């Protein structure tokens, strides 16, 4: 377990020291949300209606953008070889990396949510369910994304293919997440969303670990 947390700490440290740290993803998120009113018009009732969905899609895209590097940097400098030989099971390594990815990429977006929500005229009553839905649902984005990142590590134009293979798998998370973001805290969509996250937690690390072993071979 100590090795697990050492890996989490390392990845968080690395993310913080990478040029721009968490602010690049945050900036991308805010700009995507800003683009929407330019596209659909500054129609406040309309924005307020589509707001939760827009925020969910923007979080999903920002997550996807950062997933590209989840294993790629370790692959490029030879660290991945050592990880696969380390005493910490690869499944646990995937979990550790997902946790670090979630903390460094997604949590900043959720923290910024109350401020960004003004851009889409979000009703104040919806803020709490929206944030809870993001906390419950976004771990599945990191976990499923880890499978995509593991499959495309070391591949030409890996980032593009990563989007193509991961986005369809995100459909249930987006559907339940955006619905939970407007509904009851313990409503049906929130429960579905939680179930989806738990299922990803149970399955994705094994698939991603298998994919990593294949990718380095």
């Amino acid at each position, binding site marked *: 377990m100590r090795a697990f947390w050492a890996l989490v700490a390392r990845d968080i440290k690395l993310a913080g020291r990478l040029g721009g740290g968490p602010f690049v993803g945050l900036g991308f998120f805010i700009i995507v949300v800003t683009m929407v009113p330019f596209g659909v018009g500054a129609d406040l009732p309309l924005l307020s209606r589509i707001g939760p969905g827009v925020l969910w899609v923007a979080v999903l895209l920002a997550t996807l953008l950062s997933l590209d590097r989840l294993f790629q940097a370790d692959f490029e400098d030879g660290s991945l070889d050592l990880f696969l030989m380390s005493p910490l099971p690869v499944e646990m390594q995937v979990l550790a990396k997902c946790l670090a990815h979630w903390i460094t990429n997604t949590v900043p977006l959720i923290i910024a949510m109350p401020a960004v929500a003004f851009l889409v005229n979000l009703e104040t009553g919806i803020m709490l369910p929206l944030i809870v839905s993001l906390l419950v649902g976004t771990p599945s984005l990191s976990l499923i994304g880890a*499978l995509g990142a593991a499959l495309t590590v070391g591949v030409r134009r890996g980032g593009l293919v990563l989007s193509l293979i991961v986005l369809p798998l995100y459909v249930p998370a987006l559907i339940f997440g955006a619905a939970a973001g407007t509904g009851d805290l313990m409503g049906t969509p929130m429960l579905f969303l939680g179930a989806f996250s738990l299922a990803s937690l149970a399955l994705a690390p094994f698939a991603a670990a298998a994919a990593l072993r*294949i*990718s380095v*071979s």
Partner: protein
Amino acid sequence: MAKSIQRFANPARFMALSGAVLPWAAAATALTLSIGLYLALIASPPDYQQGETVRMMYVHVPSAWLASAGYASMALACAVGLIWRHPLAFASAKAMAPLGAAFTFLALVTGALWGKPMWGAYWVWDARLTSVLVLFFIYLGYIALWEVIEDFGRAARATSVFCLAGAVNLPVIRFSVDWWNTLHQPASVARLDGPAIHSSILTPLLVMALGFTLLFVVLTLVRTRTEIMERRAASLEMQQAQAGMIVGAHNG
């Protein structure tokens, strides 16, 4: 584990067997499709509500069936490939993907064309068609992954992991899209695959479905054979290049 490859997979036997079966299978496909098309386009009556538009169903429903059945067969082949390291299984999964994607696309196009007169728009985010659209994207992802990973063995196993992940997720996607659909719009009144199907419609439909399935099988066999021959050609080229290197080394 790789050791078992030689023992189990016998491409030579597959080539001989599939070569013998192919002409008969192709003939059966042509015959079934001819009968099916005759029944569907000429012999069967137009629908009293939908008129001639209903004939679209004879293409749409078999395509939609093959979109799902094709993916299921692909997932099965991928699982066999991953468990028993059977190169033939990987090759057949690779062969099935563009076929499944093509039938999925056909199901989407016929669904949209049928939707225009029935629903007043080509695309109304109907639950079933939307699920088929997501399935189409998963097919595309699978094919793209094959394209970008150069080494056959690595590509075969990586795409198989993705195919199985997709197979696990597809029922969830289907469920979520159905649920989402009831959330945002009332259930459609008219359906392309209506609930009560009269036997005058059912018979041509079943014949067409059989014909499409046979077509899928025949094309899969052809594509798998092509894949094996391509691999053999690449292997021969590589052997020649290696032999050339040794000769070159002796000369130099």
